């Protein structure tokens, strides 16, 4: 009798385990509940098999339970948010066409822009400055369609694109203006945050949706790199094969490369939306792998720069490199936080991440010190202003992360606060990127 009961419980358990929203510790907890209930029921006189049936029924229908778990643990299956499986299949065919249309449109738009840029009388940086505007509207459009947003929301999404297109093309940038390069670098970032609006289905205040967008960004980046690697191999082989035929290889590369890069933006987004399962286990693993390596590197760099007093001698090039490094670290930390299961307690991975954050914080302070000295000696330039602003933002974000992460590890704060801090800080970056695009050029008279 007892054996029969055990095998029934095991069967129930394996059935529950199949649910992606319920992880193995939850199953263990539910099983404990089931056993306690069965014990109570049998002691009040029910036969074991009856007790089992009653206990299972009391736990509830699995699909309802699964929905509740999915709701609470959105991160475990943020991909589907429990769409019914048969509906998903019917949709996937049309989704393919939809993705292709948007990717194709992005590719075409880049080519048209290239032709326009080739016309005589166009400035050389026009194409670079507009790069984000040529591609990201199609990504936004893709999400507008997928999420089925209202026409008011479509309009709201379109406004920033139109405004930035008008602004950056009307600004009279001087020849070789630094502000123009800054616009080219910051506009895609600002527009990426605009894409967040349709991605989140118009609900920008939701902490969970913002975290989803962070996850999306991380996964999208990985897919994009994979596509770029594959595309690179394809291009290299094509060139090698066509070279003996005397075909004009440069022309092909000139046409295929920009279009491929533009189309891949939408295709990567579609892959993240549709096929997360494959990479889902890869992205957190990559973060786990690289966070310790970056932690070691940052800690060593911080110590070396402090001990040797090299920090004061930062030159312009080194400052740029350090800025890039800090942005990468912040991205890594942010992605690591979004990929972490918030219900587990602080472990070694959190401590290593704290080391990375503190190392980055020290370096950021050094960089800021060097920067303030430079500005004191040589005055403000567009580049120095943009770099200073970025470093101050990074300092704020890293300091908050370090503080809340310490609180969490020492058991005085919840992981939830750390997550909230990250998602709450995101608009700050968006506003800064937009400010560099819109306010900085007139401030420095378009030089």
């Amino acid at each position: 009798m007892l054996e029969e009961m055990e095998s029934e419980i095991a069967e129930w358990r394996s059935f529950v385990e199949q649910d992606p929203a319920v992880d193995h510790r939850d199953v263990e907890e539910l099983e404990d509940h089931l056993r306690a209930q069965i014990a109570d029921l049998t002691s009040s006189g029910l036969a074991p098999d009856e007790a089992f049936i009653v206990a299972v029924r009391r736990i509830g229908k699995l699909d309802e339970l699964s929905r509740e778990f999915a709701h609470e643990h959105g991160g475990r299956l943020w991909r589907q948010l429990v769409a019914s499986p048969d509906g998903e299949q019917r949709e996937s065919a049309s989704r393919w066409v939809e993705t292709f249309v948007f990717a194709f449109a992005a590719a075409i738009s880049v080519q048209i822009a290239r032709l326009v840029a080739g016309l005589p009388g166009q400035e050389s940086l026009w194409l670079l400055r507009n790069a984000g505007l040529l591609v990201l509207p199609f990504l936004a459009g893709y999400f507008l369609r997928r999420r089925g947003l209202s026409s008011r929301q479509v309009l709201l999404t379109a406004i920033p694109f139109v405004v930035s297109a008008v602004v950056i093309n009307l600004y009279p940038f001087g020849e070789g203006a630094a502000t123009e390069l800054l616009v080219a670098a910051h506009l895609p970032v600002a527009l990426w945050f605009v894409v967040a609006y349709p991605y989140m289905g118009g609900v920008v205040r939701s902490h969970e949706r913002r975290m989803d967008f962070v996850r999306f960004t991380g996964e999208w980046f990985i897919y994009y790199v994979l596509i770029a690697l594959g595309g690179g191999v394809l291009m290299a082989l094509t060139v090698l094969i066509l070279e003996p035929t005397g075909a004009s290889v440069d022309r092909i590369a000139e046409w295929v490369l920009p279009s491929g890069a533009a189309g891949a933006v939408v295709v990567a987004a579609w892959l993240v939306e549709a096929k997360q399962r494959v990479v889902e286990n890869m992205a957190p693993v990559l973060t786990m792998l690289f966070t310790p390596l970056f932690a070691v590197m940052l800690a060593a760099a911080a110590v070396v720069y402090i001990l040797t007093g090299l920090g004061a001698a930062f030159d312009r090039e080194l400052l740029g490199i350090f800025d890039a490094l800090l942005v990468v670290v912040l991205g890594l930390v942010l992605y690591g936080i979004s990929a972490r299961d918030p219900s587990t307690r602080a472990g070694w991975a959190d401590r290593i991440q704290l080391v990375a954050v503190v190392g980055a914080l020290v370096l950021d302070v050094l960089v800021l010190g060097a920067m303030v000295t430079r500005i004191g000696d040589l005055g403000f330039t567009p580049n120095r202003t943009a770099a200073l602003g970025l470093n101050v933002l990074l300092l704020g974000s890293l300091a908050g992360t370090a503080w809340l992460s310490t609180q969490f590890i020492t058991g005085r704060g919840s992981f939830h606060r750390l997550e909230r801090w990250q998602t709450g800080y995101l608009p700050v970056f968006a506003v800064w990127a937009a400010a560099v695009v819109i306010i900085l050029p007139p401030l420095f008279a378009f030089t």
Partner: protein
Amino acid sequence: MQIDKDLVAASATPLVLAILDDGESYGYAILKRVRELSDGELEWTDGMLYPLLHRLHRLGYVTTEWRTPPQGRRRKYYAITRDGQTALAEHQRQWVTVARALGDVWGRSDLLPFALGRA
């Protein structure tokens, strides 16, 4: 009497927090306590308790710990935190206000002990 689903859902968080305020506990024991307190009138689907507990944990209202008693299976215990107690106090204020308003409008005295007793 069947208690309305929305009401069950709304009362779940304060109930669980209040039970944990009396001392740490685990899922099945919490559920049993809910049944006792409501004389079996509050019917929960047992499984739904766990997503709720996990939410409270995410919000930092409870801490969790897996422990294995000398003879027995591993079990997950929940204990209330200071944040959780603050949240519970806030819930109490809201419920008292609601109960008082209902008591006033119905002119009945049997809601008042609840309203006054916990105020």
